């Protein structure tokens, strides 16, 4: 629609939009995070929801303890191999459309604890991550920026794309929850999700 016509109509009190934009606006401005804090980043996440940084103005104040009622999972903190099956199970229990923010260096790649024998080197080995926030811990403003980035990403979703994405969603949902093996998780990663460049041997 012509922008000039749009603004003329707005002055008359008539707002026009597409169903797609309305749908995305509604979803993006009412993200309900899963109350899921693992470690130190969780404290910054809580600080973001407190009065100084105030996540409530983004509509994301309602932290739901149950994954069935949440649509955003903020993985904040180190995911250990002992905890990883639970994290993946929670992700699978969330209904679509769902988003994942990997908050902090530990969730992105293992962070400072990368050498640990019990540390999972990044949650994107098992789940598709939408926004990565670097930092140790990232400031509350960084988390707010991540929410805004996610809102922009959601704004680009189309209803049609969401339907096509359903197949990908089903494919990811079919991936098994990792199990505790004798030395490591089985499988150590999901190849359909995580395939970085192999290191050069020479």
């Amino acid at each position, binding site marked *: 629609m012509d922008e000039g016509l749009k603004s003329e109509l707005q002055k008359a009190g008539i707002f026009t939009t597409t169903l797609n934009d309305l749908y995305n606006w509604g979803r993006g401005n009412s993200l309900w995070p899963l109350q899921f804090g693992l470690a130190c980043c969780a404290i910054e996440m809580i600080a973001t929801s407190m009065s100084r940084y105030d996540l409530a103005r983004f509509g994301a104040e309602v932290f739901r303890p149950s994954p069935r009622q949440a649509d955003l999972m903020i993985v904040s903190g180190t995911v250990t*191999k*002992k905890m990883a099956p639970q994290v993946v199970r929670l992700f699978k229990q969330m209904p679509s459309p769902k988003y994942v923010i990997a908050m902090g260096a530990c969730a992105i790649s293992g962070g400072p604890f990368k*050498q640990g*024998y*019990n540390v999972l*080197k990044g949650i994107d080995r098992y789940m598709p991550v939408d926004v990565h926030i670097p930092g140790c811990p990232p400031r509350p403003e960084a988390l707010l920026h991540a929410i805004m980035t996610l809102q922009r990403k959601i704004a680009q979703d189309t209803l049609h794309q969401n339907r096509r994405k359903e197949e990908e969603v089903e494919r990811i949902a079919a991936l098994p929850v990792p199990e*505790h*093996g*004798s*030395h*490591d998780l089985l499988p*150590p990663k999901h190849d359909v999700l995580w395939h*970085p*460049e*192999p*290191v050069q*041997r020479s």
Partner: protein
Amino acid sequence: MTDCSQNLIDAREVVQALERAFPSAHIAWEENLSPSAQHAIVLDSEHALECAQWLKEVSPWEWDFLSNVTGVDWTDEALALQAKARIKADPSVDPESLPKEGYLEAVYHLYSIKNILGPLILRLRTANRENDVSLPSLTPVWRSAEFQEREIFDLFGIVFEGHPDMRRIMMWDDYEGHPMRKDFVDVDDYEYEPTPHDAVLKRCQERFVDPANGR
């Protein structure tokens, strides 16, 4: 001003009192080479439990508070380094009296709340690092050892006999291996390091198999 050695008592007095109370036990005083002067008492496994009970209930110092239980994995090389340092500090030390074969060790830090004393350091050593790895549990004497001894079992492999609940605490139950040991090799998880260097690069160059060409 920074003084953790306040209220330290002379561990040799405790050793003498223990030797009088348990004449058949092998009790040794071990010097701490650092300026901290926190010297230790080495107990033998057979008498450790009764010595511990005596220290808590009968001894004049009343060691009622167990602050910390640590596991240590002493390899042959580490013991050799220690021996070298001891001989350097005191050339009169007999090299034959110093331990050479590696062992696992449990170190207990005791305090007396009643008399404001401490730390008193007890050391229990296993026979070797491979198959004879059991020690008596001091949980019946001081309850605070309960979780800490479980952790030492999980991460070092020392089996504490007499512990009420000897099972893994940090790692999952099906886990095999004892990660804090010096010879622990972690699973190959580093192949995809974006900027490998030093030990990581060396390891993945040795062990990484490129799935494209199978080498």
